[in-house]
């Protein structure tokens, strides 16, 4: 294996050649969406130029090719995750949010009864909160929250109490605000010991850390292609085959049926049951290329690279700004990913981001779709910088330079 070299990754990303406000772009918003390598763009182009056709049921050559691309991406996703049941456990959706809605509607709607509890956490993205609230309105379930400690970790001191009456634990693998990496494997063991299933929001963790579903022993994994060098418009739901088989369909329409008559319908089996209508085919071509690319880099290498960048950035932020810039996330880099949320004393995150933009620095201000977490820490927003496999220490240099300017300007 060759040594991981972020500079080589950079050379593969066309967008990184851009200049913003007269300076080379400093992209620190991979937590929101990752940049796209040329091989992914080319795979999508190639699909449209040579293979485009609707999938399934076509008998002509290109329809077979399009179907093969689509189904190969499903198999590649299963391999990437080490899914115990192979590609029959991979459902393609339009994004991770839709995957959560599918989970709540089809699994929750089939298996939850009034009074049952879904246990989420205070650090969840709204995508892993609102669908459960919607289900609460429909079915009268309870949505319970694992608290977050002052040092930005899940507070599991009363995990047995929290698990009382719980049918599903649904937590993030890595917080999109704090960077906290949660002990998913341990949570899975505790959930199972208490008769509950566990779903994981892998939008950040699958994109930045190695994921082995056999090792983690979870029941559902949800993530999206565009956060892992793939295209937008494609989400993934992985679920154990027996769970998928028992779940009610989600959206109705073509492709998800076994039979339809004037009397009614019977649903298809396997992932198709949840994939009504023409799916995102070109996007799966892109995902397939992204997965090959990530496997070539090695997820463990990516995680180690981003871990180093994070440690360096946290140290220098503390050194240069002290109390003026507070990091909303663990100071300890163990079990922590490359998401750095900043609260700059006296400067609103929107103003921070605006000044940074002048330096070509892309960070994201706002609540990051995690308002309960913001409220927990008495904030309305943060300015969030996040790393990707193409990030360099140089990006942190520019971030710090621009931050100094913001602090000075509003000081």
């Amino acid at each position, binding site marked *: 294996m060759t040594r991981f070299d972020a500079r080589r990754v950079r050379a593969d990303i066309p967008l990184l050649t851009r200049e913003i406000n007269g300076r080379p772009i400093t992209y620190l918003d991979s937590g929101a969406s990752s940049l796209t390598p040329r091989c992914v763009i080319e795979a999508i182009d190639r699909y449209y130029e040579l293979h485009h056709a609707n999938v399934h049921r076509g008998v002509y050559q290109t329809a077979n090719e399009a179907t093969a691309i689509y189904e190969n991406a499903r198999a590649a996703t299963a391999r990437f995750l080490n899914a115990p049941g192979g590609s029959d456990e991979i459902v393609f959706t339009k994004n991770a949010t839709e995957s959560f809605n599918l989970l709540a509607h089809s699994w929750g709607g089939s298996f939850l009864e009034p009074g049952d509890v879904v246990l989420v956490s205070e650090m969840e993205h709204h995508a892993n909160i609102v669908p459960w609230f919607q289900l609460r309105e429909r079915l009268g379930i309870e949505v319970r929250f694992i608290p977050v400690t002052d040092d930005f970790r899940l507070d599991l001191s009363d995990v047995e109490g929290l698990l009382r009456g719980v049918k599903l634990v649904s937590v993030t693998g890595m917080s999109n605000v704090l960077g906290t990496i949660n002990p998913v494997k341990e949570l899975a063991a505790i959930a199972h010991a208490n008769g509950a299933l566990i779903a994981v929001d892998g939008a950040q963790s699958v994109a930045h850390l190695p994921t082995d579903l056999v090792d983690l022993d979870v029941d559902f994994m949800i993530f999206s292609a565009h956060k892992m060098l793939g295209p937008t418009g494609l989400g993934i739901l992985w679920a154990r085959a027996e769970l998928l088989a028992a779940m009610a369909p989600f959206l109705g329409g073509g492709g998800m049926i076994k039979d339809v008559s004037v009397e009614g319908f019977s649903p298809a089996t396997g992932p198709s049951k949840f994939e009504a209508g023409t799916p995102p085919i070109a996007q799966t071509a892109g995902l397939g290329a992204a997965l090959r690319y990530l496997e070539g880099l090695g997820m463990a290498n990516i995680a180690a690279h981003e871990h180093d960048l994070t440690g360096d950035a946290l140290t220098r932020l503390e050194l240069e700004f002290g109390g003026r810039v507070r990091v909303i996330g663990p100071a300890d880099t163990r079990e922590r990913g490359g998401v750095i949320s900043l609260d700059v004393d006296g400067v*609103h*995150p*929107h*103003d921070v981001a605006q000044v940074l933009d*002048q330096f070509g620095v892309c960070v994201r201000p706002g609540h990051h779709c995690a308002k309960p977490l*913001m409220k927990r820490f008495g904030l*309305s*927003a943060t300015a969030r910088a996040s790393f990707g496999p193409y990030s360099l220490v140089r990006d942190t240099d520019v971030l710090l330079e621009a931050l100094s300017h913001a602090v000075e*300007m*509003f000081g």
Partner: protein
Amino acid sequence: MAGLDDLYREIILDHYRSPRNRGELAPPAHRTEGFNPLCGDEIVVYIDVDVDNGVLRDIKLTGHGCSISQSSSSLMSAAVKGKTLAQVRETIATFKQLMTVHESQLDAEGGSAPSVDADLRRLGELAALAGVVKFPVRIKCATLAWNTLAQALDETSA
């Protein structure tokens, strides 16, 4: 290219650091909340209206948000306090026009725009916010207080 100086004029930073008319008014003063759900900014407007004479006797504001939303609310309070309701309505209309018209004029010619220049003079210190239109995502920050005040006036049927 629009520079930071277009956005963060000294008057804006001054009103951000030292907001005018900050605080609350006790009932029977009218209270209206304004939210920007996208960024979480929040402004609460308290108005004390002298209905008999048609005058905005007092205005106070609380809330939190970026420098643009907070300075805009401070500048607004200074501009409308003690004015007749007709003048307040007119100032709101002129300011909101400034936040929209200017952009289309930039697109069209980029030359001088006499009508806007006249408006800018009428707006006094508020004209410092004119640069916001060059940063379209920030327009909603600048207009939050104004929309909230307009809503408060509507609610009091003033």
